[in-house]
C-alpha cells in the first residue's frame, strides 16, 4: 500500500514533474533555462491622448433626413483617400494586406467587386493584397468575436449580430465621409438598422434577409396562397407538401408575433412576453394545428441535409409545392420546376385562437462591417463602402439576385418588378426588424428546439405543459 501510494503521490505532483524533467538536464548542464522566450509584445504605451471608454458614443450622428455628403469620386476626395491608404499601407511595407469575408456562394462575385475597388484606388505608393475567405453572414459575427486579430478586416453579416459586435467593441464606426453617402443612398430603414445608439456601425448590403413564400404555380393559384390551411389541403390533394421550418427560431418566431407576443432587444436586454395572457399558448397551438398535418400536406423538419438542400431536393423530386424561405433558395427552386412556374408571395394567414391571421415574420438586412482592430481602418472602410454602394448593389442583384437597399436601385424596373422583391415588400408591414428584436440570448433560449418538440409530438400537446415550457423559455432569455 505504501509503495503504491508513494507512486500516486508522485503522480499527483504534477508541478514537481515539470521541474524534475528539467532537473535532469540541470544537474549536468544548463541549456534549458538559458533561452529567454522571444516575445513581440512591446512595453505598454504611457501617453494618453483621448481616454474614452470603449462603449462611449461617437460623434457621427445619423439623421433620417438627407445630409450633406462629399462626392467620393471627386479628385480632391480621391486624393485624400489615396493619401490615407498610402499612410496606412506604409506601416506594412506599402502593401495593404486585408482579409474580406463573405458567403462561399457569393465569393466569386464579391471577388469581382474587390478587383474593381483595387483598380479604382490603385496608386504607385502601395499595392493591394486582399484575401477572400468564405465565412458566411450567419457565422461572421461570431467568428469576429473569437479574437481581435483573428477576424477579417471587412465582413458581411446578418443585422441581428450588430448589437453584439457593438457591445464588444469589435466593429468600427463608419467614418462620416462614407456615412453621409450611405445615408443619402440607402432607404431610411436600412440606415436605421445600421445605427446603434445614434452611431452608425455598418454599411447596408442587401434587404432580403427575411423570408416569404415560394410556391409552385401549377399547384396553387394566387388565392390559394392566402391561407396556410388551404395550401396544406391543396398540397395534400396533389400529394405534395408545404414546407415551413418549424424547428428554427427565426421562422417560428413569426407565430409568436402573429399571436401578439413581443420579442424585443433594447439596451442590451432581451425580453419576450410568451407567458402574458394566452398569447404564447395561442402561438404554440397555431403551430400545433399546422404540425398535425406532418406527412400529409405539410413538412416542418428539413432533417439532416439542412433546409436549403431539403427545399431544393423537395422541389426537384416533386415532393414540395411551396416553401417558406428567402431569396437564397430562389435559383435552386427555379432550376427545379422552371422559372415560369415559380411564384412568390407574402406569407399566408394562419389559424390563431380561432381566427385567420396574417403570419408575421422577421425581416432583416445583410450588412457589411469593418473590424475595429483593422490595421487599415480607412482603407477597410473605403472597401466596405465600395462593396455596399448603390451601383454595387445593382450589380449584385444582376448576378446574384440579391435585393438592394439603395433607394435608387430599388426604383430600377427589373428590381421593382422582381417577384421576390414584391413578396418581401408585401410582407414588410408584417415583418419585424430582427436587429431590434433579437440578439443576446434569444437564439439560445430554445425557441427553435421547441418547434422541434411540436413536430415530435405531431402537434399533440397539453396546454399546461405548453405554459410551463413557455415560462422556461422566457426565463432563459434573461
Amino acid at each position, binding site marked *: 500500500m505504501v509503495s503504491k501510494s508513494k*507512486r*500516486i503521490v*508522485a*503522480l499527483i*505532483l*504534477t508541478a514537481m*514533474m515539470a521541474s*524534475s*524533467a528539467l532537473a*535532469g538536464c540541470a544537474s549536468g548542464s544548463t541549456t534549458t533555462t538559458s533561452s529567454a522566450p*522571444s*516575445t*513581440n*509584445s512591446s512595453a505598454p504605451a504611457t501617453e494618453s491622448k483621448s481616454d474614452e471608454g470603449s462603449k462611449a458614443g461617437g460623434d457621427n450622428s445619423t439623421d433620417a433626413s438627407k445630409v450633406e455628403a462629399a462626392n467620393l469620386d471627386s479628385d480632391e476626395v480621391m486624393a485624400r483617400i489615396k493619401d490615407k491608404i498610402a499612410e496606412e499601407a506604409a506601416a506594412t511595407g506599402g502593401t495593404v494586406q486585408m*482579409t474580406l*469575408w463573405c*458567403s*462561399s*456562394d457569393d*465569393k*466569386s*462575385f464579391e*471577388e*469581382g*467587386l474587390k478587383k*474593381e475597388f483595387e483598380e479604382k484606388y490603385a496608386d504607385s505608393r502601395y499595392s493591394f493584397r486582399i*484575401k477572400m*475567405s*468564405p*465565412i*458566411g453572414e*450567419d457565422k461572421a459575427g461570431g*467568428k469576429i468575436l*473569437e*479574437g481581435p*486579430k*483573428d*477576424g*477579417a478586416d471587412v465582413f458581411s453579416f446578418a443585422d441581428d449580430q450588430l448589437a453584439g459586435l457593438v457591445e464588444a467593441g469589435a466593429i468600427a464606426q463608419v467614418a462620416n465621409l462614407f456615412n453621409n453617402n450611405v445615408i443619402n443612398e440607402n432607404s431610411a430603414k436600412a440606415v436605421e438598422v445600421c445605427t446603434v445608439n445614434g452611431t452608425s456601425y455598418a454599411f447596408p448590403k442587401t434587404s432580403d434577409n427575411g423570408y416569404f413564400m415560394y410556391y409552385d404555380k401549377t399547384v396553387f393559384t394566387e388565392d390559394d396562397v392566402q391561407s396556410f390551411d388551404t395550401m396544406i389541403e391543396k398540397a395534400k390533394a396533389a400529394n405534395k407538401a408545404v414546407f415551413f421550418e418549424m424547428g428554427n427560431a427565426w421562422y417560428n418566431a413569426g407565430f409568436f408575433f402573429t399571436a401578439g407576443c413581443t420579442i424585443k432587444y433594447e439596451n442590451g436586454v432581451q425580453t419576450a412576453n410568451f407567458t402574458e395572457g394566452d398569447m404564447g399558448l395561442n402561438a404554440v397551438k397555431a403551430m400545433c394545428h399546422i404540425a398535425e398535418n406532418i406527412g400529409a400536406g405539410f413538412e416542418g423538419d428539413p*432533417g*439532416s*441535409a*439542412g*433546409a*436549403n*438542400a*431539403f427545399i*431544393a*431536393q423537395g422541389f*426537384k*423530386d416533386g415532393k414540395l409545392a411551396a416553401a417558406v424561405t428567402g431569396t*437564397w433558395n430562389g435559383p*435552386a427552386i427555379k432550376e427545379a420546376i422552371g422559372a415560369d412556374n415559380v411564384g412568390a408571395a407574402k406569407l399566408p394567414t394562419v389559424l390563431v385562437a380561432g381566427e385567420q391571421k396574417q403570419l408575421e415574420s422577421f425581416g432583416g438586412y445583410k450588412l457589411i462591417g469593418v473590424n475595429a482592430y483593422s490595421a487599415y481602418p480607412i482603407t477597410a472602410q473605403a472597401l466596405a463602402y465600395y462593396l455596399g454602394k448603390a451601383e454595387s448593389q445593382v*450589380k449584385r442583384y*444582376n*448576378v446574384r439576385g440579391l435585393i438592394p437597399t439603395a433607394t435608387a436601385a430599388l426604383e430600377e424596373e427589373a428590381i421593382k418588378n422582381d417577384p421576390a422583391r414584391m413578396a418581401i415588400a408585401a410582407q414588410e408591414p408584417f415583418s419585424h426588424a430582427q436587429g431590434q428584436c433579437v440578439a443576446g440570448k434569444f437564439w439560445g433560449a430554445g425557441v427553435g428546439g421547441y418547434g422541434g418538440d411540436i413536430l415530435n409530438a405531431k402537434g399533440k400537446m397539453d396546454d399546461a405543459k405548453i405554459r410551463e415550457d413557455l415560462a422556461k423559455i422566457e426565463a432563459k432569455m434573461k
Partner: protein
Amino acid sequence: MTTKQPNIGNMQAGYAKQRKIANITVYIILAVMVLVWIFPIVWLVFQSFNGEKGVSLATFFPEKWTFDNYIKLFRQEGLENPMDPNSPMIVLPVDRMPFPYGRWITNTFIVAVFSCVISTLIILMVSYALSRLRFKSRKMLMNFGLILGMFPGFMSMAAIYNIMEIIGLGKQLFSLVIVYSSGAGLGYQIAKGFFDTIPRSLDEAAKIDGATRNQIFWIIILPLSKPIIVYTALTTFLGPWADYVFVSYFMKGDDTKYTVAMGLYEMLRPETMHEWFTVFCAGAVLIAVPITILFTIMQRFYVAGVTGGAVKG
C-alpha cells in the same frame, strides 16, 4: 468417461453435422454484419457517382451514373468575368475555385508528412527511453503522461492558438504540425510495448562491446523495430487527414490553408450543400481509398502493437 461405450462413428457424423450447421450460422451472421457495416460506405461510393446533384436521401442506386463529381474536385468552372452573368464559362484557376480540393490535398499532405516525421521521431525517442533506459524519474514521467492525457484534447485549444499567434504561427499550416506532433510524446504506449519485447540481452551484449546507449538505439534497436516504425509513421501520417476541430479553430476561415477534412466539411455548408454534396462524396471517397489501403497494410502492425503493449504494460 461413462460406462456405456458410445457408437463412435455415429457420434462423429453427428458432430460433423452439428459443426456444419454452426459454421453456416456463423457465415450468415458474418455476412449480415458485413452488409450492415459496408452499407454506408457503399452508399457513399454510389452517391459519389450520382449524376444528379442534390442530396437524394432515399435513393441507393443513382439514376444517372457519372464520373464528373471526381473531375469537379480538380476542375471547376465559373464565369470568366464574375461581374457579368452573360460572360462565358471558363475553367477556374485555383485561386478562384470555390472549393480548391487539390490545394487542400497538398496542404494536408505537407502537414501529414511533417507531423509524421516529427511525431515518429518523438514517439520512438520517448518509448525507447521509457522502455530500455532506467532512470530516477521514469515512473513519474509515465504517470504524468497518463494524467496529462486525461485532459480533453481541445480544452486548451484557445490557449494554444494564442501561443501560436504570439510566436507568429497564427493561421499557418505549420501550427497544425506543431499541434499534431507536440502531444506525440504522450502516445508512446504501443511503441514502448514493442520495445519491451526486444530481449534485453541484446543491449547487454552491445554494452560489453563498448557501445553507448546512443549507439545501441540507432544501430541495434531501431533496425529491429521496423514494424513499429511503420505502424507509428502510418498512424501519425493518417491523423491530419481526419482532424477537423483544430483546423476549423486555427485557420479562422482562411480557405487557402484548409486541410482536406475541413475543406470537405465546408462543402456541406447550408448554402452549398445542394450543389456540392455529390462532389463531397467523391472527395471523401478519394481520400478514403489510399487511407484504406494504408490501413489494411497497417492492420497486422496494429494487432501486434495493441496486444504487445497491453500484455507488457
